[in-house]
């Protein structure tokens, strides 16, 4: 009984004390890198507003060539984001055109993340490496 009581008290103390100190050990920002596994150039990668997709917050502000990877960019957005990606040199007819794809929500969490871009069954997709 005494052990249970002591453990209970320790659990409480741990829970209460960690609550204002976790930022010393846990990361709250997101550092993100994009790897392009498709045959088209990709970029930029952005988070968009569900109500208005033209309202965007850019996470990776560069264009990544096929088979290449981007630099690491830091963002203060973390968590579950509505991600979209632009394909700036997509063949349409005889020319190349710029198109944006909204890829839905993805839980990016926080810390260092590497995202791979690929085209699966003719649809652009992002996945964690």
């Amino acid at each position: 009984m005494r052990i249970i009581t002591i453990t209970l008290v320790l659990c409480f103390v741990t829970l209460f004390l960690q609550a204002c100190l976790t930022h010393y050990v846990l990361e709250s920002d997101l550092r993100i890198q994009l790897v392009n596994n498709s045959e088209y150039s990709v970029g930029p990668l952005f988070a968009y507003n569900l109500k208005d997709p033209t309202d965007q917050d850019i996470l990776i502000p560069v264009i990544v060539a096929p088979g290449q990877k981007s630099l690491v960019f830091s963002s203060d957005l973390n968590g579950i984001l509505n991600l979209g990606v632009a394909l700036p040199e997509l063949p349409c007819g005889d020319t190349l055109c710029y198109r944006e794809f909204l890829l839905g929500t993805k839980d990016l969490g926080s810390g260092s993340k590497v995202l791979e871009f690929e085209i699966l069954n003719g649809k652009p997709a992002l996945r964690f490496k």
Partner: protein
Amino acid sequence: MNFKILNLSSFCKPSNQGFVFFIFWMLFIAKSSFGGAVDPDNLLPVAVHNRESHLREVSEVFYPGYNAYLKVESFYEPIPGYVNMKTPYGELKGYPYRQHLGIMLSNPIEKSDYDIGLLYMYDRQGWDSEDFILVPPKHRFARGWSIHSAGVLLSDTLNKASAGLGGTWLINHYNPVHGSKQVDSLFSWGRFYWKRTDLYASWNHHSNQWAQVGLGLKLQARQLRDEPSSGWQTFLPDMHYVWHNREDLQHELRVQQNLYDQRLYLKARTFGDSLQNHYGILSWNFDQAHLFGIDLSLNHQKKEYFAGFSAHLTFFTVSYSHPEAMEAYLPMRGVWFFGVSFNLNTRHRGKDDMDFFGRGAARPAELATEKINSPKKVGNVDDDPIVGGEMGAAPK
């Protein structure tokens, strides 16, 4: 292949029970570790509530004769990502927080029956990307505000009357681009207390109109207020009516009824308007000074009923879907709240003694004090076997 079967019976032997309990506790936390996401605009009524609660709290902790009050509270969610924040771009991970400080000090004026007191109450609240002790990180999407209340109180201990004047300042800390409609405002308030009646009003200087008017009838007899400690008068209800100058909420009624021994209480609150928010709390206090307690609550919100729970352990508070935590901290149901919370009220008793009790208590804490009486007849020191006798003699 050899499969090693986990021997649960040896794992659960008595010496491991604490560890097993710890594991279950952690599983329990992990299972319920996704509270959901809060819409920042839903946080706005919390600011209004907390500003009003400063005034309501004064009427509980400042009574003619009470001389000090200290309240320290700090609430965080212990796990990052437990309560996310809705932004246009998605749900961001972070922490909702609330830090609260209340100080009241009152001193008798010499050669009179009057006490003069000073009051300061502080609230800092919102949502931010990191937890912190003193300095918030102020993320781009962070929301937050602070509320300062300060006042001067004068009380007449002989006639059990008091009056107070003060101001409340609401300051927003957020990036205006992502901010909401809440505006910085200055309020002034005044309050008057006589015997068991409490009246207060506050004026909003930003919109130049009344912010609220409150009327409290503290009919319940309390020993701490030099009223009977038992009998039918202790079973009278405490009622509190507040008129708010708000569109969504105008009439608010709070009732507190003693059910048993001024330890078991039934508290209820109802809003008369469109919010349709009513709750009842059954509150059991283990001690008579209300320093330890357990609450069970039933909340009726948006035509749905849900139950809640809270435990107050002098320095810590844990609650789940508890309406008082929801209205003061985070308006989300199905969420655990953890916090450091401590409050203590004191009162002079006689010349040298002091009573200690929690907020709203009817009787003081029973402290294990012992009066040491000096012996009437002091004998010769040399007769004392310890001091002057053989046992106490220095070795030669």
